[in-house]
């Protein structure tokens, strides 16, 4: 019985990183009603920034170095997010809603191939997987017969803290409330004197900073980063936001944890080979029974 409890707990703990991925994805969708496919690549680049910092500063032996790696990932994610907005979204503001889908796929491919090449030319990187040294790697403990990895617990605590900060930002600050207004109706936001473009850039920066945090935490948990790690996480993030409700931040939080639990429990109770099949079966059922997701977003849209 403790074994099943362990699968459930690990699902919740690790699923919190999926929540961060999904939140970033969904804030952008909720604000500009466009999918940012480059979100996965942002996670990857930010994870590389964290791994590089950890390698150079000795993250395997130092909590401080690991903390700096986290900061590097978050900052890289935010910067890259702003760049993606500038390159792949802003020039196409009046184009079809599908156009940024294509441009962000292009950004993804360019970044993946760039990091593949860097992986083969930068001496501290490796061709397939680059290490993300972490002092937390071998930390583990048992609670009630359940084996818990320290890195999962830290990941969960950090993710939860970020979600709380995000909640406070959205609900308690002027800029956060501006984001909500733009999400609801950008035209009304303009009439209220809100600088919509500035809000959009802020949203990209915040969403991508969360992606950076997710990249760092996932890289730390797995122990490695790779040029293609973002593609899988993008799919996971998409499933999480559809489960939780497109454009809904709290839905994305729940969706991410749900995906983590479904994955871990399916692997533990059934078999690894059923993991994705079961996940997509749940997604299919959700779309049939509650197409708007667990928590629906506001109905206002631009198109």
């Amino acid at each position: 019985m403790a074994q099943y409890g362990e699968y459930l707990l690990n699902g919740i703990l690790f699923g919190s990183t999926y929540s961060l991925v999904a939140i970033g994805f969904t804030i952008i969708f909720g604000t500009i009603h466009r999918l940012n496919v480059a979100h996965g690549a942002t996670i990857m680049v930010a994870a590389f920034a964290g791994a590089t910092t950890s390698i150079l500063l000795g993250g395997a032996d130092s909590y401080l170095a690991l903390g700096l790696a986290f900061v590097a990932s978050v900052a890289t994610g935010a910067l890259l997010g702003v760049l993606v907005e500038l390159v792949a979204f802003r020039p196409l503001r009046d184009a079809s809603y599908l156009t940024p889908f294509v441009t962000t796929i292009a950004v993804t491919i360019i970044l993946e191939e760039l990091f593949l090449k860097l992986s083969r030319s930068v001496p501290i990187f490796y061709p397939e997987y680059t290490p993300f040294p972490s002092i937390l790697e071998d930390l583990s403990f048992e609670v009630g017969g359940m084996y818990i990895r320290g890195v999962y617990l830290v990941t969960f605590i950090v993710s939860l803290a970020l979600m709380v900060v995000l909640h406070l930002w959205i609900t308690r600050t002027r800029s956060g409330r501006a984001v909500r207004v733009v999400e609801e109706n950008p035209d009304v936001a303009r009439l209220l004197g809100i600088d919509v473009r500035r809000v959009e850039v802020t949203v990209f920066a915040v969403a991508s900073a969360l992606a950076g945090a997710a990249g760092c935490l996932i890289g730390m948990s797995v122990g490695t980063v790779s040029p293609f790690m973002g593609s899988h996480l993008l799919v996971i993030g998409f499933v999480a936001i559809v489960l939780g409700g497109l454009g809904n931040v709290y839905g994305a939080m729940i969706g991410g944890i749900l995906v983590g639990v479904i994955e871990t429990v399916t692997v533990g109770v059934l078999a690894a080979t059923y993991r994705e099949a079961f996940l997509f079966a749940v997604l299919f059922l959700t779309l049939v029974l509650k197409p708007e997701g667990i928590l629906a977003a506001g109905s206002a849209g631009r198109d």
Partner: protein
Amino acid sequence: MRTSLLISAFMILLASTSAWAFQDEGTVRIGLLEAQTGVPAPYGLQGLEGTRIAFDEINAKGGVMVNGKAVKLAITPAPNGYDPGADSALTVALIKKLMQDDQVLMIKGTSRSQNTEVAFNYLNELEKQGSPIVLLSSAAAAPGLGKISRWGFRDAFSENDIVDREVKLLAEKFGVKTAGLYVVRDNSYCTVMEQSVILPALKKYGIDVKVTTDGLDSDRDLSRQVEQLKAANVDAVFVSGTTLPSIGLMKEAARRGFKPKFWVGTVGNITTEMAKLGGPTVERMIMGSSFAPGAPQIKALADEYKKRTGQDINLFGMNGYEAGYLIKDAIEKADIANTPESLHDDRIKFRDGLEKASITSITGEKLRFSDERDTVKQGFIITIRNGEFVEWDGKPTT
């Protein structure tokens, strides 16, 4: 008018330039189709560079003898061939392009079993269409692929023999009686290895398979797999997996205090990352390889590879290098004319030449193709020590 005349003259010049290719040009065109981007890039790039080193060596010594004249091996298109990435459809399209537009004698590629399976099936299609061509892969090692097409050849490393030897040793010398298996299911090589190589060998030597656990390449949490292996308390664990889940499994086992006498891997574990990232937990895992790392006879090649790429040569680079020399030997045995007009016949003759090709590898082993068009290599049992692959000293893993 004058401009169009000039353009026409230029086009005629271009057309005649391509007609100068082949023997008149002093080259034999060899198509290269190795993955340089995407997931299989680590294997494709090793194969590409290994073959390029071999071609450079051959060309530096004058080239290959064709029709009484020494001609150079020309990678087509220069300098790196085409890159199909992990895309099987693109692989097929590029085979067609190399054959029709680039007019190559044969194609060296592709870089992983999934793509090669599709490519070999396409070779049968080409044969039916009356335009056959040889594809020689130095990376696709999944057992049974050689049966698909008489035009598909492989100088990969088939693990049948080495796994048999490993299991025999474990059973007879070390008294291993029980085993557990871990298989990555979304990689065809891993599942074929389990079914066609590892399980038959274990059965042959009377080792009882207590548990088979599996996972996916993208698995991050391997606690369930380790718990299953630990509960079965097996003497040896056979890991048929790719780098990351294999490292993850062994690290999780170490964290949970599970220490079988032996961890046994496959060629899928012979990667730089396995040795460098696995740390102490993967030390002494054993696996089969086509060459013994650190052997004096491969030092010059390993140094040259490192000089060119900054990385260590591995099994895939070594296979690519051998493939270069097998291509040379096949050309010299094929009696080709090497002209645009003779290309169709030359491709058929090259296939016959490859069947007869026989070289002494840099490892000292005699190489030739089997009836299923695979080179048979005796191989070496290797292990990881101090972050490096070395020949196994015959001691237990843990």
